[in-house]
């Protein structure tokens, strides 16, 4: 019984196959460029994945397009330009710095600056406020304690 079950399960596994795309490159350099590009280009369907990670139909098509352009001998800039002309800067995981993307690039630094300024102001104010002046009696007591400490050494 168990053997039959195992055999049956083995056959079932034959039916399940992962869709692996096999691409043949002329040079290892082309393959490296292909891998870099599909890691840098974003899938428009599953927007938080790049072309390499996404299994959406569109991602497959865009991978095929990238592959074909590499084999054809197009430069990286031409391939990226091709994608941007159709899908806009959104297709790039590292969009160029322009007016429309300025906030995207500068935003984190602006927030960091604001945060540091607040921390700085906070600390300065606390240093100023938290030390009330000593009264004359406290001052004398402090002096006595300090002198006593000196003798101990």
């Amino acid at each position: 019984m168990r053997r039959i079950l195992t055999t049956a399960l083995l056959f079932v596994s034959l039916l399940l196959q992962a869709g692996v795309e096999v691409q043949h490159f002329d040079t290892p350099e082309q393959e490296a460029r292909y891998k870099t590009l599909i890691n840098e280009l974003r899938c428009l369907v599953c927007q938080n994945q790049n072309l390499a990670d996404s299994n959406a139909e569109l991602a497959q098509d865009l991978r095929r397009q990238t592959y074909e352009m590499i084999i054809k001998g197009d430069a990286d800039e031409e391939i990226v330009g091709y994608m941007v002309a159709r899908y806009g800067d959104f297709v790039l995981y590292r969009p160029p710095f322009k007016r429309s993307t300025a906030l995207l690039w500068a935003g984190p630094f602006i927030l960091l600056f604001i945060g540091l300024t607040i921390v700085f102001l906070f600390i300065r104010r606390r240093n100023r406020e938290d030390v009330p002046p000593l009264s004359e009696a406290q001052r004398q007591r402090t002096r006595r304690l300090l002198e006593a400490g000196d003798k101990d050494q």
Partner: protein
Amino acid sequence: MTRYLLPLGIFIGLVVLLAAGLTLNPRYVPSPLIDKPAPVFSLPQLHRPDQSISPADMLGKVWLLNVWASWCVACRAEHPLMNELARSGEVAIIGLNYKDRPEAALQWLRQLDNPYRISAVDEAGRAGIDWGVYGVPETFVVDKQGIIRYKHVGPVEKKDLEETILPLVRQLVQKPA
């Protein structure tokens, strides 16, 4: 007092910012093709595969390119509206049957009615890439000079049609060819 006003101010600022963010559609990617010439294709017609259709055939007319597929559930949702628009005769709708099997597409149109003057068959999805298609259905408004003037991603709803697409079409029709 200012001690409490500052955190409250920051909180209100954040609420406004996040509330604005919630009203945005993260699936909407602005198309770089707006105000650019419609990408060229020459594809077989769905109903007459021996004949081809290209955007150049529509020069001189304002028309819509509606990207659809029989596997696309949202296309089914907008289909009655497309039928209604086609019946009104206000603007010609050209279909781009995207990554579909022609038999399935024909069957789909038989079942749900055919609003398209002509449907182009883009089985491999290459014309789709040229048009920057990423979320079927998509609808483009093309003017008489063959320039793309507007793109709608996702199913067109009555409101989109009445408030955005049709006013734009009427305005473009007025312009001389």
